[in-house]
């Protein structure tokens, strides 16, 4: 079998992106760390948002990371799946709302 594009062990090397651009890499990880701290939203709520977004952007590394993060926080599988559906609903809604554009165009071009 040919090599896959995604290698699960690459997630461990995420920090290496700083090697080729220290200033930007550092700024990104500082920002990333700050975002997920306890704030007006709890770290638990942010973990579920991250899990939903991970699915929407279809990032296998993020899905691995935030499934594990959820388990650590005691988040249940029912909560995780509901978060995935929340992401999926917005994504499919975003597709379907373009249907209005299609309808508008259709009406404009039709006699």
């Amino acid at each position, binding site marked *: 079998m040919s090599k896959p594009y995604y290698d699960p062990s690459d997630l*461990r090397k995420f920090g290496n992106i700083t090697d080729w651009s220290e200033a930007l890499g550092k700024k990104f990880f500082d920002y990333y760390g700050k975002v997920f701290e306890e704030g007006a939203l709890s*770290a*638990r709520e942010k973990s579920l948002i991250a899990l939903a977004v991970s699915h929407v952007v279809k990032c296998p590394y993020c899905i691995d990371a935030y499934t*594990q993060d959820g*388990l*650590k*926080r*005691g988040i*249940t599988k029912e909560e995780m799946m509901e978060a995935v559906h929340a992401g999926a609903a917005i994504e499919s809604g975003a597709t379907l709302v373009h249907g209005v554009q299609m309808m508008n165009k259709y009406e404009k071009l039709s006699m």
Partner: protein
Amino acid sequence: MLLKSLKKRDNELANAKRQLELLSNGVFRSGELPTFGKQLESLNQFPLKPKSLEILQINVGYMCNQVCAHCHVDAGPDRKEIMTRETMQQCLDVIKKTGAHTLDLTGGAPEMNPDFRWFVEEATKIGVKDFIVRSNLTIITANKKYYDLPDFFKKHNIHVISSMPHWTQGKTDQQRGDGVFNASIKALKMLNAVGYGMPESELKLDLVYNPSGAFLPGDQAALESDFKKALSSNFDIQFHQLFSITNLPISRFLDYLIASDNYEDYMYSLVEAFNPAAVNNVMCTNTLSVSWDGWLYDCDFNQMLELKVDSPVKHIRNFNKEALEKRTICISQHCYGCTAGAGSSCQGTVT
């Protein structure tokens, strides 16, 4: 669901030497990950030395009514190793003279030792500050002869510490066996009924959380708050503290890690989460572990790996505090379990 211990199944991981070999091979042999010893060397903390003895943890036997998937003791109904009254007497003699403020009874299910109640009564007379019994909860409901355990604990002012991996039935039973969750809830209600775990009560009831899988525990305070909310609103159950404990890669948990192809990733998680601040407070620096047959170990995990203390004094009958405090603590890669994140010990996090 597991029904038999690794030992009964003749599994190669029932062999302590084999476990230690595994823990030193692979990613550690190749140098991909630093050994625990190397990690300590880089902090100038090698060899690891004990401070003064504060906790005497006595394992009164490996027999248990449960066969938990993650058990580092490989305990179960088929384990026959049980501490005799003679060894208990040797422990009592030591408790009298050590000055350790905490006595911690564990197992197996310590209550299954036929001399358990005698031992508790005798040890209470000596008077230690904190007398812990690690109860798996289900033993209280397992048989009529155990129904009065909450009253017995209360009478001797025992500090009860019990395991509970999650506030949902599915995750608890998956780790600890079918029916364990409901039996545990029933036992917690019995303990609450006599005053254990109530907000202002001096009858201490703490819970231990172990992750039910190949991941590290999350923040202890956040988990405690979630457990309290769920147990109180769903079952009207109260408890004091939650101790989150990392699963160490030995015995049945090691078997699970290897069988589920999670071993390497788990070791990476432990090493990546290595916290130098946790090294200063690892429990082997203030605890001694005594096995059912009276041998001395740096901790309960080393007991299961058959790593006796590195000291001329190796048995409770020859106990000598000064000689033992000069020893060097035995380590291997399983020790990463106690230094990951906020650290881990039988008393929860250490930082």
